[in-house]
């Protein structure tokens, strides 16, 4: 285990981190997650800035708070590690934090003592827990008690909140007092201050529950739950079930609430108003909650309007802090090595000799440099080491270029034709679909644990001959690649067996040699499309893996699942290279940026996060969705991101500015698939409501850019009517649209299972 921790932290800093995990096998899986999660995020200095992480990493300790509190938190972690016999990890942590052995010892004992008496909530624990609740902790740790709560009482105590004891009878009064105040203020401030209601409501309710005032909690809930915004319904439903302190122990949603600060953006004027009011009324209860559990991001300028607030709120932890989206993102595209070669030249090459491209390569590069127009927003070509192009990849690129010349220019006047691939007899079992980039293969993941691959071209699927037969082949012959294929195995579809639970995500590698699938069984599997066998099972998630995605350059892939951690893998490493922790709920979808330097993850916490692969940082947090996000798509130029959620809305984001720039309303059910056309003019969305809709993305982007929004505050006015952007709606009869894909010539392919 210590080595694992080591690797994690190093990996963030160093690129090709050596992966060594000798004793990993003996380690309990949950703890692996936790520790690993902490360290990954720690090294990256991830946004929620977990205290554990920031202290453990010797880097810039971002998390504020008194040093003693930090120390205590650290002690708790050390204690936990020690208790689980992670001696190495303790050593490393101690070395990095610069803590002396004896002080650790003594403090640890102190801690343990307080932990033992934790149930009685002595003074010591009070301060401890208060302290820890000021700083936040990683959800990975937060999630841990759900599984191993009994094993780690010390950590639990450290992290527990709501120790203050107010008079439960007064809570209702406090809340309605605030309500009255907000209703009495000027209109321009009312909308902003109304944001306080929801987090205050939740925290007050939880405090009541935590302090065992069950009846008061129920009454409080019944009285005020109706006031909350409708998009918080799902969380309120969870909340309503929770009436006992014991329930809080295992409930992830509430743990998130307790351990992460709810972020509000309020203008300075409004904030002053609120502060004055609370001070006048001596309303310490509410003030304490605001201090401890809320993060108020104050800005100078005009208070925001209700619609502006509504468009950005809805996430589990409020809006993103402004500084969270300030980091520079290199959203430009990488230079394509071949892209500089004149087309006709390539055509000849492709037709004449297959071996030639390689020979000409140096020439190409020299020519390329001439016409090089480096995109200022593009990352360094070697910022992330990318796999070398193979000859076959180059051939494919040439094919791509050829096809691209025949591409249809789309626009509002020329919409794409749609070809729908319907899965028949799937008995509701189809859970995931993917197309290869050249649209020659379709893979389907099914609830019966199988993955099926179809060839949609006349070319059948063939597997390679067995080893014994391969020995007999003349390796020198020109058609050796043809000879190695077993003609007898040719069929239109192949079934891949290996998972032991529903397959929730499939992804083809760009070179069509591999297929990834992730499943409820917690594994990601890599399949060979040459032999149609499983090559690797990537273990690490332990909980259902909801989505996986190959990098557009191959080799890397991302996976995300119920454990709230997105993992970046390389196909030749059986352990993840990066772990992206920060989401407060399941990661439901993943997507690689076209330049492969970033990944986007969508989550059930209703946020989209963009992560930098280089250092593991979270560089963007997009809030505004009102339901779990189920689909993501980057525009081909890398500038924009589209996300679709269960609320049926599609949101458009400007990655460079970190802003929401559009809202596409129309779908009536979960948007399960999004795709930009090859040139980015059209955005296609497919939904559970059995429709494919086409949107004018150019117009959506242009409209915003002509607006004079202030990029600094990020307060945008969305166009009211997204119907103008809707170019077409196409119904299927009873087939939810699960996947969309634009062929290289801009024909739109859609797929779904017929659902009688």
């Amino acid at each position, binding site marked *: 285990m210590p080595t694992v921790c080591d690797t994690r932290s190093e990996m963030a800093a160093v690129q090709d981190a050596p992966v060594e995990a000798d004793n990993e096998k003996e380690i309990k899986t949950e703890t692996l997650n936790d520790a690993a999660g902490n360290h990954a995020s720690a090294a990256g200095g991830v946004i929620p800035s977990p205290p554990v992480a920031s202290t453990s990493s010797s880097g810039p300790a971002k998390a504020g708070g008194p040093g003693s509190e930090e120390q205590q938190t650290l002690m708790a972690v050390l204690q936990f590690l020690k208790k689980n016999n992670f001696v190495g990890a303790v050593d490393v942590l101690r070395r990095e934090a610069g803590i002396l052995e004896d002080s650790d010892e003594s403090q640890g004992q102190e801690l343990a003592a307080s932990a033992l008496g934790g149930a009685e909530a002595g003074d010591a624990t009070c301060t401890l827990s208060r302290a820890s609740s000021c700083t936040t902790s990683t959800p990975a740790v937060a999630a841990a008690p759900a599984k191993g709560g009994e094993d780690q009482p010390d950590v639990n105590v450290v992290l527990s909140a709501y120790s203050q004891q107010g008079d439960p009878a007064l809570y209702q009064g406090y809340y309605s007092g605030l309500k009255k105040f907000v209703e009495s203020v000027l209109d321009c401030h009312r909308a902003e201050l109304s944001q306080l209601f929801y987090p205050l409501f939740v925290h007050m309710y939880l405090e009541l529950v935590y302090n065992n005032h069950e009846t008061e909690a129920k009454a409080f809930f019944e009285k005020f739950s109706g006031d909350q915004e409708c998009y918080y319904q799902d969380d309120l439903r969870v909340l309503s079930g929770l009436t006992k302190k014991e329930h809080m122990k295992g409930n992830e949603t509430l743990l998130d609430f307790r351990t992460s600060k709810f972020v509000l953006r309020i203008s300075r004027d409004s904030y002053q108003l609120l502060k004055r009011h609370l001070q006048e009324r001596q309303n310490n209860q509410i003030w304490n909650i605001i201090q401890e559990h809320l993060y108020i991001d104050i800005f100078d300028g005009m208070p925001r309007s209700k619609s502006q607030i509504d468009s950005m709120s809805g996430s589990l932890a409020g809006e993103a802090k402004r500084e969270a989206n300030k980091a520079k993102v290199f959203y430009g595209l990488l230079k394509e090595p071949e892209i500089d070669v004149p087309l006709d030249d390539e055509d000849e090459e492709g037709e004449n000799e297959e071996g030639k491209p390689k020979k000409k390569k140096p020439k190409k590069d020299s020519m390329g440099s001439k016409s090089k127009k480096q995109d200022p927003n593009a990352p360094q070509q070697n910022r992330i080491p990318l796999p070398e192009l193979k000859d076959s990849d180059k051939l494919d690129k040439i094919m791509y270029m050829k096809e691209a010349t025949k591409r249809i220019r789309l626009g509002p006047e020329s919409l794409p034709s749609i070809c729908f691939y319907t*899965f028949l007899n799937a008995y509701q079992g189809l859970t995931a679909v993917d197309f290869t980039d050249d649209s020659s293969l379709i893979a*389907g993941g099914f609830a019966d644990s199988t993955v099926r691959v179809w060839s949609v071209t006349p070319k059948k699927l063939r597997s390679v001959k067995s080893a014994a037969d391969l020995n007999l082949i003349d390796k020198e012959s020109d058609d050796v690649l043809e000879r190695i294929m077993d003609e007898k195995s040719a069929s239109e579809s192949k079934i891949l067996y290996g998972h032991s639970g529903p397959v929730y995500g499939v992804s083809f590698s760009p070179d069509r040699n591999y297929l990834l699938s992730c499943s409820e069984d917690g594994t990601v599997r890599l399949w060979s499309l040459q032999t149609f066998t499983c090559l690797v099972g990537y273990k690490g998630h332990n909980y259902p893996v909801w989505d996986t995605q190959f990098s557009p350059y191959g080799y890397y892939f991302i996976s995300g699942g119920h454990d709230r951690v997105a993992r970046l893998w390389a196909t030749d490493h059986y352990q993840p290279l990066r772990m992206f922790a920060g989401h407060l709920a399941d990661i*439901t979808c993943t997507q690689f940026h076209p330049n492969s330097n970033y990944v986007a993850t969508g989550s059930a916490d209703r946020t989209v996060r963009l992560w930098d692969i280089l250092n593991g940082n979270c560089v963007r947090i997009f809030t505004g969705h009102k339901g779990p996000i189920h689909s993501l798509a980057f525009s081909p130029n890398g500038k924009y991101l589209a996300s679709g959620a269960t609320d049926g809305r599609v949101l458009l984001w400007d990655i460079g500015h970190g802003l929401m720039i559009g809202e596409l309303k129309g779908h009536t059910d979960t948007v399960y698939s999004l795709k930009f056309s090859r040139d980015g003019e059209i955005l296609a969305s497919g939904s559970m409501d059995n429709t494919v809709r086409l949107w004018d993305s150019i117009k959506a982007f242009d409209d915003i850019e002509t607006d004079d929004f202030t990029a600094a505050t990020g307060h945008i006015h969305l166009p009211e009517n997204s119907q103008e952007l809707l170019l077409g709606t196409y119904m299927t009869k009873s087939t939810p649209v699960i996947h969309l894909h634009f062929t290289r010539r801009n024909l739109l392919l859609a797929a779904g299972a017929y659902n009688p």
Partner: protein
Amino acid sequence: MEDEWRPKQCSVLLPTESMKTMAESVGVGQLQEESCVALTEEVSYRIKEIIQDALKFMHHGKRRKLTSNDIDHALKMKNVEPLYGFQSQEFIPFRFASGGGRELHFYEEKEVDLSDIINTPLPRVPLEVSLKASKEQQKTESTEPLKAVKPGQEEEGAIQGKGQGAAATEGKGKEKNVARLKARSTHELSVEQQLYYKEITEACVGSCEAKRAEALQSIATDPGLYQMLPRFSTFISEGVRVNVVQNNLALLIYLMRMVKALMDNPTLYLEKYLHELIPAVVTCIVSKQLCLRPDVDNHWALRDFAARLMAQSCKTFSTTTNNIQSRITKTFTKSLLDDRTQWTTRYGCIAGLSELGPDVIKTLILPRLPVEGARIKAVLEGPVISNIDKIGAEHVQSLLLKHCAGVIAKTRPLPDNLEQYRADYSYLGPLLHSHVVKARAQATLQAQQVNRTTVTITQSRPTLPASQSSLGGTGGSRAPSIIKVPSSLTLMSTRPGTPTQPSPSATKYIVMATSAGAASTQQVITLGASQSSSPVTSTVPSSASAQQPLVKVETAGGGASSVGGSRTLQKYIVVSLPTSSSSSSSSETKSSTTVPSSSASPISAEPTVKTERSESPGASFHGSH
């Protein structure tokens, strides 16, 4: 609305009674009330929690329905052993029971006998998942509006598991492969069409002759029957199947008349339904028994009629791909060659073959004549075995004579030597000889009349009304008994608008002659019209190129044999068909001039007196025969 459910969701708890019941079921007897309350809250909360997790699985499974599998997975995620045995796809049927002051909802689990499971045949293997592409072609000029598929247009049976093929159609709102859609569509009939279908089929097999005539007329002329064609063909094929077993001659005849009417409808193309119609028709030709009393009933006429239908469909639909004619010929020949074939079937085979044309007669029947002759002789002159056999033999004999005489007359060189005939055809030789001579005489006679395009009915031919020539040949005579149809059976009739006959029991003869190029055709059909409407029956030669006058002779009173009687009056109806036989504008003229039966007058010279009807069903009706 939210306010309605919100307070509710807060307070939804399992009743404490449930806790007690569950505790008892696991062997905990006396549970404290307090423990029950505590348990209730805990259990309710945990259940909600699990359901919330299960919802995640539902969403990721891209479904709208929460299944028991989702709950299993949610339990697994919480490290709880899933509940096995709840694999029901559908709603789990909870049963309610009360008793002992308790109300219970329980899931009924029946004891299963293992041997039952083993012995039941395996259920069908679920269909393999398959892919189907359907395309929405975008028109360049406009955005496509939503396209709705008419409900009920397609069947989704296959997908639900009861269908046959994996390639079952699947409904898409998108524009899809049209050909494919058509092939699988069921063609819902409108209410009007359903009514029409019901009325027509009832009338066709009902007892009212007038209605039947009307119905058949409608079938033969209505241009919009295409949608009902599959139903009609099924109706006919099923009807024949049933009625052959029951020997219901009348119904079989009605059904054959429906086939005839369908064939006559120029807007219908029957080729797709031949697989149903041909077996029905062939059944009516060769079935061993078609009626209850073979010795009395005239099932021979049905066989003749069906044979003509068969010949007609062969001519119309036989192609090199379906090979109808050769397949039918083979079938007939096979049973003809079989020694054990009954006379009835033998008759049918010969009739069927004969109708296929002189070439078929020449190659397949003429060589058989000596053998058949011997067989007939054995029955007719040998010891009397059964009356039925005798009648059968007689019919076969006359049928052979009728068909072969014409062919022989055309092919065999003169002179007709009786001895030679006897040598060649043994028993049938002498009879054939006389028929051939007669046929030759008629041919000469007709050759003279060709230019006049009329038919002269001469007194010198006592069997005139019954004579019917095969195509392109000279008329051969036929025993009246063969062609006379019992008055209750009408093979063909038109609508009742035709003037009724003065005499109810009249037997009518329709003589039709035509000249088509060099060959002249004359056909006479005898029909009995008894009660109400007068059937106008006519046969039209196959060639429709030349001008085709139609002569209809209506005899008032008297049977076929008494035609020549001086007391009878005959009506000559001259029907002139235009050059295009299918044109509906052909006029029929009826000459009501009463002439003595003995007179042989050129009828076409008669002035037209009355236009019978402007729209002639006969024209399209008898397109070719």
